[in-house]
């Protein structure tokens, strides 16, 4: 009997665990180690953040789902990986620390035959002074990265709306809280949902809303933008985004690295080297992401974290990490199997794998501050990668010489439905598809993408799709009948 241990139970880890268990059955063991007791459908957090959904609608307890599926669930955070075992045993293992009430802080060793790192990101609030300490959100801004953050964000937002109703002009600032953030899409959704809610609350004329981000053009989204067919030609997402921001009366500040956050004020540096300040009464700034801080330990007890992990804390996989300058980047730099090059029984998926380089053009200010979006790994690619990795491991368990399954982001399309306001009849969302996620300039000279599968439109139907997807993916994650038929 082989044991597959999955660190992380988010979109990618949960997908990998559930498919692995389905394919392996009871002949082998699947263990999930995740510090959270609940599964969170993160894309809907923005609706919690504007009070259009409750926390309970976007989370569900993992334990009963895993119990039903026959997956061993350990509510704990992974601390270290020992891929060669220790002085007493060659069996690889990880050490974990319980986060469960009653046993919190207790450590345990979990041996494995195969390991998937799907730990997701560390919300690195501490990277920007004033944005927070370590992984803890600070007091000056709010976040929608977790369901609890989103609940808090809504409480603060309502206070701002109340003040606006009382005739006090309010300023809202939404965007990215560091020069190297990803997840612009979530901030994009949140700012337009706030704008929509402000209108519904009748306070839009008393609320100034502004966008701040590290993108070098509006509509970059960390993927170098996308393109929409228009009369047979490709129009940039910049045109679409600028139209939307102008239409909703939201000015923007881009190419910005938020260098410091204080009460009611952010300091920023722009790509041209200039600096400035922006005041706010309410601000949601996405923090930069980093690896969760796992360490790797050699058999003799020495630290070998650098062997397994990239400097940003994400796990090294079969990517080309020495691609060099932007001009040399190729689609083939991106990983296909997500297998660790040193330890073949170790894989990473979702946000936990180290990308070879950004997707957007890397830029820095004259002072050398890097200001550009880091590559996003949204739900769809994360789910697809998780499933491919699970498939590879299941095949390897049954046949050690089996060929690995591939799911390169440079050969994968992604669909994203970005909400711009919730409402059955007045909601809007932008439905965007992009193929491939990572531009392939060799196959598709010029823009690097196949325009047949790259498009975007905004409208009410998009909102309905987003709402249906919310229920559909939670249904799938709960492993209800027919869950395997729902695509990632």
């Amino acid at each position, binding site marked *: 009997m082989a044991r597959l241990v999955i660190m992380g139970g988010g979109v990618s880890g949960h997908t990998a665990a559930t498919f692995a268990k389905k394919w392996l059955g009871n002949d082998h063991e699947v263990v999930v180690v995740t510090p959270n007791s609940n599964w969170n459908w993160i894309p809907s957090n923005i609706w919690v953040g504007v009070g259009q959904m409750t926390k309970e609608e976007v989370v569900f307890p993992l334990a009963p789902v895993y119990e039903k599926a026959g997956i061993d669930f350990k509510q704990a955070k992974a601390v270290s990986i020992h891929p060669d075992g220790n002085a007493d045993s060659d069996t690889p293992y990880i050490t974990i620390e319980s986060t469960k009430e009653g046993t919190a802080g207790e450590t345990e060793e979990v041996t494995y035959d195969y390991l998937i790192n799907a730990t997701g990101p560390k919300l690195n609030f501490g990277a920007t002074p004033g944005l927070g300490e370590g992984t803890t959100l600070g007091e000056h801004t709010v976040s929608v990265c977790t369901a609890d953050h989103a609940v808090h964000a809504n409480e603060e937002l309502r206070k701002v709306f109340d003040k606006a109703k009382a005739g006090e002009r309010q300023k809202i600032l939404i965007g990215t809280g560091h020069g190297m953030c990803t997840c612009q899409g979530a901030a994009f959704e949140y700012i337009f949902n706030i704008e929509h809610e402000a209108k519904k609350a009748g306070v839009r004329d008393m609320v100034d809303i502004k966008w701040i981000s590290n993108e070098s053009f509006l509509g970059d989204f960390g993927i170098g933008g996308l393109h929409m067919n*228009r009369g047979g*030609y490709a129009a940039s997402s910049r*045109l679409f985004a600028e139209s939307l921001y102008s239409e909703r009366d939201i000015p923007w500040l*881009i190419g910005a690295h938020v260098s410091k956050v204080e009460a009611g004020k952010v300091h920023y540096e722009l790509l*041209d080297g200039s600096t400035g300040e922006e005041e706010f009464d309410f601000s949601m700034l996405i923090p930069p992401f980093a690896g969760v801080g796992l360490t790797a330990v050699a058999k003799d007890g020495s630290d070998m974290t650098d062997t397994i992990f990239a400097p940003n804390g994400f796990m090294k996989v079969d990517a080309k990490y020495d691609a060099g300058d932007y001009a040399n980047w190729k689609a083939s730099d991106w990983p296909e199997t997500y297998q660790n090059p040193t330890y073949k029984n170790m894989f990473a998926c979702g946000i936990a794998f180290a990308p070879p380089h950004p997707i957007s053009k890397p830029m820095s200010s004259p002072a050398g501050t890097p200001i550009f979006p880091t590559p996003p790994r949204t739900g769809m690619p994360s789910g697809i990668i998780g499933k491919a990795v699970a498939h590879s491991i299941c095949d390897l368990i049954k046949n050690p010489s089996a060929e690995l399954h591939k799911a390169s982001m440079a050969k994968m399309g992604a669909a994203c439905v970005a909400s711009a306001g919730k409402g059955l009849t007045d909601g809007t969302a932008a439905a965007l598809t992009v193929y491939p996620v990572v531009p392939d300039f060799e196959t598709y000279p010029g*823009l690097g993408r196949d*325009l047949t599968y790259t498009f975007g439109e905004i409208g009410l139907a998009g909102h309905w799709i987003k709402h249906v997807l919310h229920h559909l993916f939670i249904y799938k994650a709960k492993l209800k009948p027919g869950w395997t038929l729902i695509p990632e």
Partner: protein
Amino acid sequence: MVQKLVVYPDPRINSTSTDVRIFNDTLWDILQDMKDTMEEHNMNAMAAIQIAYPYNIIIIKEGEEYWELINPRGLTQSGSFDSKETTAYYPDLEITVKRDENMKIIYEDREGKAQHRDISDKQLASTLQRKMDYTFGGNLLDKLEKKEREKMLDHLADRGLTPMPVDDICPTFSKKDYFVSFTNKLLLVMGLSLFTPLFNLSKEVIDTIYNIDKIIFPAIIALMIGFFFYAQYEAKKYKQCSSCQIGNNIGVIIKRVTLATLFALGSYFILSPK
């Protein structure tokens, strides 16, 4: 070398220009072609796409000097004014659009070195914004309200300039519509059949109608399956047709299959011989 200008109705102007990644002779040749063409046509600014090079390059003539901007981006903007503009793409057309008065921009020079500049000259700011729109696949008419844009297009049409037809756009009528049309007729028959008990018809006639419904229902399902596959084939043929997209086709199918199912259930409860 002087290149041919892209002039309305040439649709290539709608192409998004790709960022320059490699700074070498190819780029420098393009820059020279742009300058030669600007000189020839006495132009004060040009985006590379205006001579059909789909690269994110702009040149602006300042006095006798040519200011080269590779991969330009606008970071901030402030102020707003009505700018009366002309462009070589729409000859003899003067259009008033809203432009930002001040801008902070970043760009690279011909060696790939990052540069930046604050623009506070209204005229220069508007020229730059107009050219940057071109690099992202937009043009002057996009800035206008729909009605005003149509007025301008009518004005151009009066001069014999009409939009060029683009290949593989939506067909005005496609063969997949035959599937839908026939399905609609069958649905009408099924729907009408539910009213037969209101008339004083014999049991045999009602039984026959019920049997017809029993044939029509699977026929509709089969037609919709046929529709799906044919529509998929057609969608590949007409790549730029938004009504050919799979979502629309699925919508057509769901609507009709749902109706057919409801009618079939109605037929079963109302017409079936008990």
